[in-house]
């Protein structure tokens, strides 16, 4: 624990606390949110912050604080799904590629190259146009889009390890590939997977929010930070920025914190590199 704190540094620890608060807020939303996020009263629109409505209300009279709490759930779940699928499938593909080499490696690389040719959001939009707009479709599509990035990074590291004696000798002894990969290769790429997942989480969060913003992800009246930024746009223009700005800030703070944590974990600049 102490080593972790040292690795993170003072700012990193603040970031960890922030992320922890966000996660707690999301998990405990059903319990701590004072109001139902989807129900509002027209007579209560655009109220300023008060004891009853900690952050005020939006244009439909819904409590913003509750919406932020509930919104945290979809804003976090989506990226979590993306990151998990990407990590699992990406790593599996990479390690399989590295282990078998040759034809398997080049075939997998070809397929991944094809995915690389699509900008992530486009792949998601394409999937949504076929299967309909929902958080699930968006998350699944984005997972597929992210896989090649993870696979590439894991593959290049695993490739270096592949020919080292500690891998080759059990192979020569006839131990099965799966066992060697799991017992020896995997632990050595594990830190890379974790760092990549942390960074990808932030990117996924932003891209999923963007999709919700476009009306192609989470659908109203559900609460979601990206969706809130969008639905709050008119209010913002009319002079009631609370909903958009607060939701947007939630995204910024969470992603910035995750980015910083990912950097400290990985020891190199996270900005810009999809892992």
């Amino acid at each position: 624990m102490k080593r972790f704190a040292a690795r993170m540094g003072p700012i990193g620890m603040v970031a960890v606390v922030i992320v922890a608060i966000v996660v707690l807020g999301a998990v405990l939303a059903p319990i701590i949110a004072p109001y139902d996020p989807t129900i509002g009263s027209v007579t209560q629109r655009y109220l300023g912050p008060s004891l009853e409505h900690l952050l005020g209300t939006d244009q439909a009279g819904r409590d913003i604080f509750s919406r932020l709490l509930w919104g945290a759930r979809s804003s976090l779940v989506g990226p979590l799904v993306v990151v998990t699928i990407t990590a699992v499938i990406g790593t599996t593909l990479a390690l399989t590629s590295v282990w078998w080499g040759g034809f398997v490696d080049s075939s997998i690389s070809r397929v991944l190259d094809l995915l690389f040719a699509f900008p992530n959001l486009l792949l998601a939009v394409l999937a949504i146009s076929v299967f309909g707009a929902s958080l699930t479709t968006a998350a699944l599509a984005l997972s597929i889009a992210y896989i090649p990035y993870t696979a590439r990074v894991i593959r290049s590291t695993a490739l270096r390890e592949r020919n080292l004696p500690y891998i080759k000798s059990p192979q020569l002894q006839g131990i099965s590939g799966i066992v060697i990969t799991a017992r020896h290769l995997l632990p050595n790429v594990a830190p890379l997977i974790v760092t990549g997942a942390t960074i990808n989480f932030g990117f996924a969060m932003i891209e999923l929010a963007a999709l919700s913003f476009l009306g192609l992800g989470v659908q109203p009246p559900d609460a979601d930070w990206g969706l809130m930024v969008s639905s709050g746009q008119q209010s913002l223009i009319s002079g009631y920025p609370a909903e958009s700005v607060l939701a947007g800030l939630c995204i910024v703070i969470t992603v910035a914190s995750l980015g910083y944590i990912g950097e400290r974990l990985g020891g190199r600049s996270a900005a810009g590199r999809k892992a």
Partner: protein
Amino acid sequence: MFVVRRLLALVGVLFASSFLVFSAMYAAPGSPENFLVQGRTVTPEVLAAIREQYSLDDPFFVRFWNWLTNVLQGDFGQSLTNRQPVGDLLANRLPTTLTLVLLAAIIIAVLGIGLGIVAGVRDGIVDKVILLGSSLGFAVPTFFAALLLMSIFSVGLGWFPVFGSGDGFFDRIWHLALPALALALPSAAVVARITRTAIREERDSEHSVMAIARGVPARIVLQRHVVRNSMLPVSTIVGVHIAGLIAGSFVVEYAFTLDGLGTLLVGAVQRKDFAVVQAIAIILVAGFGIINLAVDLLYAAIDPRVGTKKAS
């Protein structure tokens, strides 16, 4: 030769991508016709036209081939919702999107690299401010930046128009300034950060230190050794981000209600007009591929080591 190989690779990928885009509609449940029509009531003539457009009577690969050859000749078929030729719709929207992406690209390069160099070369307050700004900047989603800029500078201060893309060269730039800035912001932040790191690494590189040790004036060392060498990794990143602008532009266009390809795409998805979606998708993939290829070629041009040694 290097260039030829990459071009062939690009063509191959584009071919495969177009196949993916084309066959996507078959992934949906139900028959392709139902999917394309999406429950709208249509006359038998229109239905026949759709069957014709997609050669639904023919075997699968014939359909794909027909579609592909049409696309390569510029015939994207007709919009499924308003029977307009898709090609025309695209042609109308393309200039706005292109201008937007170009402006954003310039901002990323100039602002991102510029600030990165300043932060890399100086220590002290300037560096800290730029570092902080770029570390936060990358976390700001484009759409949020768009909204903030809009509320402060358009609605609030009235310096820029709120929507639309204007006529004429300067009017257009004035209209697209805020959207381009919003689009460029997160990428510029990342580029600034990476540039700063690259500059600092080059400052401490042996050839830079040795140049100083040989008495080469500091200003020349900075230019010729530090900045020039750091442009190698930086140009790759800038290129990647410029390519990424293609996707990001949808969001900004939507936020600012611009008449670009992005709003057309989003509208088409909402209206389930798959013909338009396909057309835009294939164009965007092509654009993405071309930009990526250009970046690779640029890198090969400035680094003499590429081509002789395989860069991993």
